[in-house]
């Protein structure tokens, strides 16, 4: 994966999507939500999963619409029926840090009502300030927010907080973004970080797709100590808490801490039992002793047979066993004979053993106990009752909470170039995708038959500037909407409904009918039924253009009453 480039990862994924037949049921359906462009990350997730032989299909929520996606029961995410959803916060969230715990609480509650799936929410990446004399003032809310998120998730089984801040520190915060990807595509993570994050997400996917591992079966020679006890003797094996062989001692300490967390230990070794047990019980460097092991198989039989016996002695399936052995040959035999056993490749150098096992996440479980899993359901039921009682916060409530103010004003010399830019660049919410050039737009502005309206949007997070445009053309008793577009940054807030109702109000002053046109393109499917939804009637349809009309003497489209509207009339 790491050897691949950004482009190769994306191309492989696109080829996969092209070749995957529609009715293929992916084993695991994953949904991704984020406050930035998460789509390219889907390719990384698919790629990492495919490397592990796991088939995933990935749904990506629209740009920065995570709140709507979680709150609306009919959102694209819920329609995709995910087994697991990820909410990933990108860098630069410091200014929003204070509001995040509440937002996350809302997300968790809404998700519990609408889905039985697992939910993983990232914490926030705290900014690194290596060259300041003291911590940035922003740092405090971010770390407080992250503490709050941990507490929120603790009380909500089925929900996990992904420590993306820790992951970013691990890679180096300098390296988590790629400024070119950010400025060209609002993709806030670098190739290296997306690779790492995909592996992390895969850990959670593994947890929901397979039973957690419960047993760690260990080889002895060159695994728990250096050397071969049967040949070198107990005094010559390499194992010590302070001298040569310390790496094996440290490795054993890590294994001991796994045992303390509930992992059962077993020995699976080709040895003379007397030699081996003598070392285990009497060598001063040993951390683990015979009594730490729940099952012991020290003999000269094949290891796959021994593992089968260990599992049955512990009343577990072989699919709950992890086997560690320094010998690639022994690992290969077990992998082939018992493919359901997890057989990670121990690093070649024993000094890496301790770090290796610390990062081995096979023993994690999504909910810590079965009781936790039941609590998920109890919790969800409770929430359903609560919501019936006090009308759970809806998408409408969310949009209202944003305090959106829309301003509609004629395109002026000042807004001219931004208007032209929107005409050239907007693809998705664009009813006609007519790419008028600057000269054409200038001539519209000076013509009495045209009205050009710029829409700007402000909300509690700031001012998005001019993010919508309409070009109206008056001909006899008709007003034709030549162009109607909104930037994708402001979608999902029902702003288009307020905008069209304002357009209708203006048109009614000069015309009897308002004509709307929809010209289908590869990217504007989402607006195909927009005019219908706004109460227009369809008057003609061809493959290339669908025409709608609204009688302006009748009922005009109602604004959704979710936004403040400021209007400036034509001079």
């Amino acid at each position: 994966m790491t050897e691949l480039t950004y482009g190769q990862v994306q191309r492989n994924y696109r080829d996969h999507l092209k070749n995957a037949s529609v009715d293929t049921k992916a084993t695991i359906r994953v949904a991704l939500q984020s406050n930035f462009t998460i789509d390219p990350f889907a390719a990384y997730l698919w790629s990492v999963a495919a490397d592990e032989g796991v088939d995933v299909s990935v749904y990506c929520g629209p740009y920065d619409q995570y709140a709507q996606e979680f709150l609306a029961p009919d959102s694209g995410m819920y329609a995709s029926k995910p087994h697991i959803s990820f909410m990933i916060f990108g860098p630069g969230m410091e200014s929003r840090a204070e509001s995040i715990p509440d937002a996350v609480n809302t997300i968790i509650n809404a998700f519990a009502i609408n889905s039985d799936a697992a939910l993983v929410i990232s914490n926030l990446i705290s900014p690194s300030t290596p060259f300041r004399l003291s911590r940035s003032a922003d740092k405090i809310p971010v770390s407080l927010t992250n503490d709050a998120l941990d507490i929120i998730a603790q009380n909500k089984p089925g929900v996990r907080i992904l420590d993306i801040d820790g992951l970013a520190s691990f890679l180096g915060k300098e390296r988590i973004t790629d400024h070119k990807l950010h400025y060209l595509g609002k993709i806030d993570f670098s190739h290296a970080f997306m690779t790492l994050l995909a592996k992390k997400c895969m850990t959670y996917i593994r947890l929901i797709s397979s039973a957690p591992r419960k047993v760690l079966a260990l080889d002895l020679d060159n695994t728990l100590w250096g050397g071969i006890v049967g040949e070198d003797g107990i005094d010559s094996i390499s194992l010590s808490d302070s001298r040569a062989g310390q790496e094996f001692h440290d490795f054993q300490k890590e294994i001991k801490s796994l045992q303390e967390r509930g992992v059962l230990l077993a020995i699976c070794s080709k040895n003379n039992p007397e030699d081996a047990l003598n070392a285990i019980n009497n060598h001063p460097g040993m951390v683990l002793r015979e009594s730490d092991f729940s099952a012991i198989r020290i003999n000269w039989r094949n290891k796959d047979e021994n593992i089968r016996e260990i599992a049955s002695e512990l009343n577990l399936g072989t699919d709950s066993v992890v086997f560690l052995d320094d010998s690639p040959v022994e690992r290969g035999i077990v992998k082939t004979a018992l493919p359901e056993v997890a057989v990670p490749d121990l690093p070649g150098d024993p000094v890496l053993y301790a770090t290796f096992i610390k990062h081995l996440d096979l023993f994690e479980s999504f909910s810590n106990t079965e009781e936790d899993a039941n609590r998920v359901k109890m919790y969800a039921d409770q929430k359903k009752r609560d919501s019936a009682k006090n009308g759970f916060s809806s998408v409408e409530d969310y949009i209202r909470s944003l305090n959106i103010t829309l301003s509609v004003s004629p395109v002026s010399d000042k807004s001219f170039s931004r208007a032209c830019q929107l005409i050239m660049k907007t693809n998705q919410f664009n009813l006609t995708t007519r790419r008028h050039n600057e000269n054409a737009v200038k001539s519209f502005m000076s013509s009495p038959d045209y009205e050009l309206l710029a829409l700007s949007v402000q909300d509690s997070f700031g001012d998005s500037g001019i993010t919508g445009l309409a070009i109206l053309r008056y001909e006899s008793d008709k007003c034709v909407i030549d162009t109607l577009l909104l930037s994708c940054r402001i979608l999902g807030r029902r702003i288009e409904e307020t905008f069209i109702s304002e357009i209708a109000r203006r048109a009614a002053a000069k015309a009897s009918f308002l004509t709307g046109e929809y010209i289908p393109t590869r990217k504007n499917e989402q607006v195909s039924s927009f005019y219908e939804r706004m109460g227009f009637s369809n008057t003609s349809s061809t493959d290339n253009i669908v025409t709608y009309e609204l009688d302006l003497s009748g009922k005009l489209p109602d604004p959704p009453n979710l936004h403040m509207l400021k209007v400036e009339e034509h001079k």
Partner: protein
Amino acid sequence: MNENLVEIFKRMFKLEEVKADASPDNLEAWDSYAHIELILEVEASFGISISTSDAVELTSFKKIEDYLASHGAC
């Protein structure tokens, strides 16, 4: 035509032959995501760094070819 660039275009957009006027308007696969990949690929292949403001403007085979020539990369 710049052969290295032709190869990149063939690979990226799965083309048999590449025309100098190839652009997002006549290549369906050339969307905003593909554009980012293309810029990164050109940078890696030619060992150059393209500024973001230039990258936004490089919207045809010809424009990229001219850019490479004027920046001494081929």
